[in-house]
């Protein structure tokens, strides 16, 4: 597999070098792909050399060559998926902007939603417990709530907050003055 890729890469570089020699441009191919077409694919790939740098904006010479390789492959009619697969086969999964959805890489996609949903579940359970405790506490001590006492009650108060804004506001102002 590795040997085959090496041969393939050597072939592409030779082809690219040939294309760069004036007058020896490869004929019988599609028109030279534009920078935008090249960048559309390069944007989805990451520089195998520089950390966390997309290929379309990486200024290194190696990345310049890789962009030319993409141009060459596009000229040959290769699809975006084929080009990405080629780079992945040769340089490994790190050239992709996301881990491929295989094996252990599934964890990167599964863990965050599972953790978040677990948080939602725990919160919901906690809320039910709080509600039950509050109910028990109210019935146990027979503390009745007094509506309309403001929506920012003192700590310890179990009174219901009346949401009539003016009442709430008046109360606040009264406290502050």
């Amino acid at each position, binding site marked *: 597999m590795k040997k085959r890729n090496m041969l393939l890469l050597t072939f592409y570089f030779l082809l690219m070098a040939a294309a760069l020699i004036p007058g020896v441009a490869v004929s019988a191919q599609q028109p030279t792909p*534009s*920078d*935008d077409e090249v*960048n559309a694919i390069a944007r989805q790939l*990451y520089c195998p050399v520089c950390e*966390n740098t*997309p290929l379309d*904006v*990486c*200024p*290194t*010479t190696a*990345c310049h060559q890789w962009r030319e390789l993409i141009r060459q492959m596009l000229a040959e009619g290769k699809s975006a998926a084929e080009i990405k697969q080629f780079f992945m086969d040769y340089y*490994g*999964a*790190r*050239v*992709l*902007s*996301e*881990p491929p959805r295989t*094996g*252990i*890489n599934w*964890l*990167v*996609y599964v*863990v*965050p939603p599972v*953790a*978040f949903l677990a*948080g*939602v579940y725990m*919160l919901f359970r906690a*809320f039910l417990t*709080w*509600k039950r*405790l*509050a109910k028990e*506490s109210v019935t146990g001590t027979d503390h009745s*709530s007094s509506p309309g006492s403001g*929506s*920012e*009650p003192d*700590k*310890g*108060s*179990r*009174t*219901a*907050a*009346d*949401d009539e*804004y*003016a009442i*709430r*506001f*008046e109360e606040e*102002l009264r406290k*502050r003055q």
Partner: protein
Amino acid sequence: MLAQFGFGVFVLTFLLALFSVGGAVLGYFSKSDRWVETARRAMLLTFPLITLAVLTLTYLLVTGHYELQYVYSVTSNDMPFYLKITALWGGQAGSLVLWSWLMSAFASAVTLRKWERDRELLPWVIVVTSITLAFFLSLSILYENPFARWWQTAAGEFVPHMFAPAGAIPVSPADGQGLNPLLRHPGMIIHPPMLYLGFVAFVIPFAFAIAALVTNRSDDRWIRLTRRWTLVAWLFLSLGLVLGMRWAYDVLGWGGYWGWDPVEISALMPWLTGTAFLHSVMIQEKRGMFKQWNMLLIILTYALVIFGTFLTRSGVLSSVHAFAQSAIGPMFFAFIGITFIISVALLIYRWRDLRAEVEMTSLFSREALFLLNNLLFMGVLIVCFWGVIFPLISELVTGQKVTVGPPFYQRANAPLFGALMALMGIAPLSAWGKSTFQTLGRALWKPSIPSAIVPVVLAILGVRNWIALVGFTLVAFVVFVTMFEFWRGARVRQKRNNENFLVALWQLAGRNRRRYGGYLIHLSMVVMAIGILGMELYQTTTQKTLAVGENIQIAGYTLRYDSLAQFPYTDGRIVTRAVVSVFRGGKYLGELYPRYDYYPNGQPMTIAGVRSTLADDLYVVLVNWENVSVAQAPFKVYHNPLVNWLWIGSLMFVLGFLVAAWPEREEEEREGKI
């Protein structure tokens, strides 16, 4: 000689920090005020001492003492004076010195008062801040010594060392390598100190939290005492993030401001927990709830502050193997592990004492919505944390590195940020305590109506992207809710006090600065969201090599390549600058000057030519990695809609912060705050 002096001061400060830890612990357990006072004074002494070391290093930097490895690596003869000063934090060793300096400054500011009323907390505040300071000083002394000098060994090798290795002779280069050109931007000059200020300031509420845990103070005193510190930490961390974004936008030349790079994320993570904490402590103050959760949040924030520094300083991001080879990586790892385990163990030990004073009774109450807000922040944190560490896990398990790039973060975080925006609109209208769906609905319907018109108008104007429709509707919703809150508050005040509406509005904000400052911060966030939505959903780009006189089109603009010039600049760099004329609908709008500079050390810097309006930025890059000549030059052009709202929002954020954090006289008197 000066280098030895600076190093000696560092060692002395390190010993003093350790002494203050010992003194504080001894004072607490032996109930000796004298020992605590001695520890406090030792702590106070660390600041002038580190300042002395910092001044020494700065002097060595500006006077070009290239015999020191650090000076050699970050300065050069052709650098301007101000850059030689900012080179203090231009490299690893210097930035760790800055960390220690800020830590000692903040710790001294806190311990400057004698804390008569909260004397029992003081020893543990000293212990936590001094341990953190001692840890960072130890890194500077043992591994990243900024005073180490160059030596040539008998084998001919050049090695940096504090003291002469056997048989080595000192070396004094005539010039240094100079600061990385990317770090010469004003944004990057201010960005690291801002970020570090934010990082370090969060140590203070953490120190008080630990002090409260150790002394079993289950009330909210530690929160009230450190509220302003928390706000300051949050402000600086936010500003640090925004400045970093601006720097990336101006200097990196890829047309964006945020690339979901692990270094960026490492600064974002403590901001996420810090923001959750800022919201959550309000519940403890108002209702006596979430005491355990607040402790956990501040412990997490502290751990993430150290973790963020660890990520960027240990080399672990480039490879787990680099971490293993790095000297400071394992030290950081051990420190984070030990402090986190001890903090969580303390929290577990005090768990029962930190039970809520009242229970939550309604899913629609403000405290429930705040808790939901916290859950969403934690959701974003999980995504970020997992995305950053997964490549390391993958490398450890499979031996193969993977990239977790922007698509992952955007897809996972977008709905969470959307939900946070919705909450930003809903929560201010909810009531504390018992609130029902009906009461919340009654408060919501008025601002909801104008918000509902927004997507209709946008659709009529041709917006078809559903994410944009949802996003801009949420922006409008938060804006209307906030305006509605200001309006009805002022109206009630106007009626009650018979005031002019504007006077009532001013008095309203002045009477409850925390709340209305918070609303302004909410507004600033949605203004920033406008910029983010514009960039993420509507950014377009094109690249083309142009001959002189040729055009390139993007988003209704036409750009014509006019000329190119290359010339040397006074600091030794070679500037290559293109002149590009901009037209729209045939009308000439002006010239742009994209350029790239090559510094004497061979490092390039790309400076885009940018035409900025409230509607969009036209961002033109002269692509230096392609063949550039006077006859033909390659240009990469980005059309960045609405991006300036991001920067406007950040200015509004500062205003909102000032309102929220401005001292309220009665509160000051009542609380006796720091």
